[in-house]
């Protein structure tokens, strides 16, 4: 009986959270098109998120390209198919691995940062202070951050993909005597709009999910400093799960239309 009650309570909490998050999302769409627009804060957030994540994305992308090529090479050589390496790496990185890995990195870097920042503003009453001064903290803090992640993540993913391909080309050049020109010619021959368009659309949704969950967890943070830690942690965990769900849906839809 006790166990049944716990499961019921957990289910109730889960659906309550889904409901709250849906309301939060609806409020974002209601506020985002309503003046006054916080362009200055949006630009500041875009700069913070993009600029401060750039090094991490570049390093991750480069190592991803290197490792992926190094690990795949022996298997392809076994089948005498090493000439397929550029097209295989190109398609894999552009369609799937690049967006997912970069989005997960950004969920850790940006999502947890948003959760912790808004959470600490909530527990130190800074959000309340904005509200009593007659301004709209949701618009200033939440709308700008979600918009910034939605706009910046595709750019970071394109950057990460490009650097990953450079890393892969470097290995092919060193190990397989493939020139950079030949490598990239093969990559661009293999990649089509059917690879690029769904991946780009998907990356906007990834960015939206990172901003949304980070803001939701931080904005409704409670329980003092412990709550800030929980908000930051939950932002990363929930976002990671959400990213895989979005990725699954995106792959499913892509499979139907492309």
């Amino acid at each position, binding site marked *: 009986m006790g166990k049944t009650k716990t499961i019921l309570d957990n289910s109730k909490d889960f659906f309550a959270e889904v409901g709250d998050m849906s309301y939060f999302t609806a409020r974002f769409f209601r506020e985002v098109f309503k003046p*006054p627009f916080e362009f200055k804060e949006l630009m500041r957030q875009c700069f913070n998120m993009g600029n401060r994540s750039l090094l991490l994305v570049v390093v991750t992308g480069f190592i991803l390209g290197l490792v992926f090529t190094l690990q795949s090479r022996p298997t392809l050589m076994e089948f005498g198919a090493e000439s397929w390496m550029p097209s295989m790496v190109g398609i894999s990185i552009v369609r799937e691995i690049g967006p997912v890995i970069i989005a997960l990195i950004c969920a850790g870097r940006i999502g947890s940062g948003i959760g912790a*920042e808004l959470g600490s*503003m909530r527990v*130190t*009453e*800074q959000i*309340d*202070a*904005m*509200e*009593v*001064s*007659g*301004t*709209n903290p949701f618009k200033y803090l939440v709308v700008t951050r979600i918009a910034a992640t939605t706009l910046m993540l595709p750019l970071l993913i394109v950057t990460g993909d490009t650097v990953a391909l450079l890393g892969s080309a470097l290995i092919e050049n060193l190990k397989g005597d493939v020139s950079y020109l030949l490598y990239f010619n093969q990559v661009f021959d293999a990649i089509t709009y059917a690879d690029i368009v769904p991946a780009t659309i998907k990356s906007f949704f990834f960015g939206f999910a990172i901003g949304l969950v980070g803001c939701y967890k931080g904005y409704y943070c409670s329980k003092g400093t412990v709550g800030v830690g929980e908000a930051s942690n939950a932002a990363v965990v929930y976002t990671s799960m959400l990213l895989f769900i979005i990725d699954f849906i995106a792959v499913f839809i892509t499979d139907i239309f492309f």
Partner: protein
Amino acid sequence: MESNNKTAPVLELKDLQKSFGENHVLNGFNLKLYKGENLVVMGKSGSGKSVMIKCLVGLIEADSGSIRIKDHDITKLGQNELDILRTEIGFLFQGSALYDSMTVRENLEFPLRRHKKMLELKGNTESLVVEALTNVGLADAIDLMPAELSGGMQRRVALARALILKPKIILYDEPTTGLDPITAKEIIQLMRTIQDTYNTSSLIITHDVDCARVISNRMILLVDGINYAEGTYQELIASQDPKVQAFFKN
């Protein structure tokens, strides 16, 4: 001062009730604040003082009762109307609540961004910021970050931010908590100066008896979510009621 005057109160709470689950915090609290008055609400920690003051500005929704500020029942106002009414109220938070990613200047400019034109405040943003900071004695701190200020300085900047829209009512939530006795005295003195300069009515929430003694024209003792006792400081301290006596002795 004007606690017994016949004018309408600038702020009135009637039968305010608020519970959090089984915890009944406010059980029919009443309050009237008159123009130019310093009204102190005292009570033990956890007695519901902060909940009451947050209900008053719409940060927490009361379960029942009415909250009237300048003839507006705030429980019936839309968000836009409430935001406009909030410009007439300054709020000093317990922990100062300065925006820690902004400089002192940006902290003070923040409330002006939306309301400066509507309120038709004289002077440009820069002069209003400098004026507010000068009135709290911190004009030199304009380009510092909140983390570079001491606790007392943070409280002063928070007070300057609360005053920037030139409100008619100021709400103080534990203005001296966490400060050393000397700084606490300076803040109390500043509160009196501010009242003279800006001609405000003040509602002060505190459990600091010294603060109440110096600043109050009238006091309400909040016990078990109701107005347990009311009067001037002298009247309350002379009370023979054991609960009132226990409060002042402790």
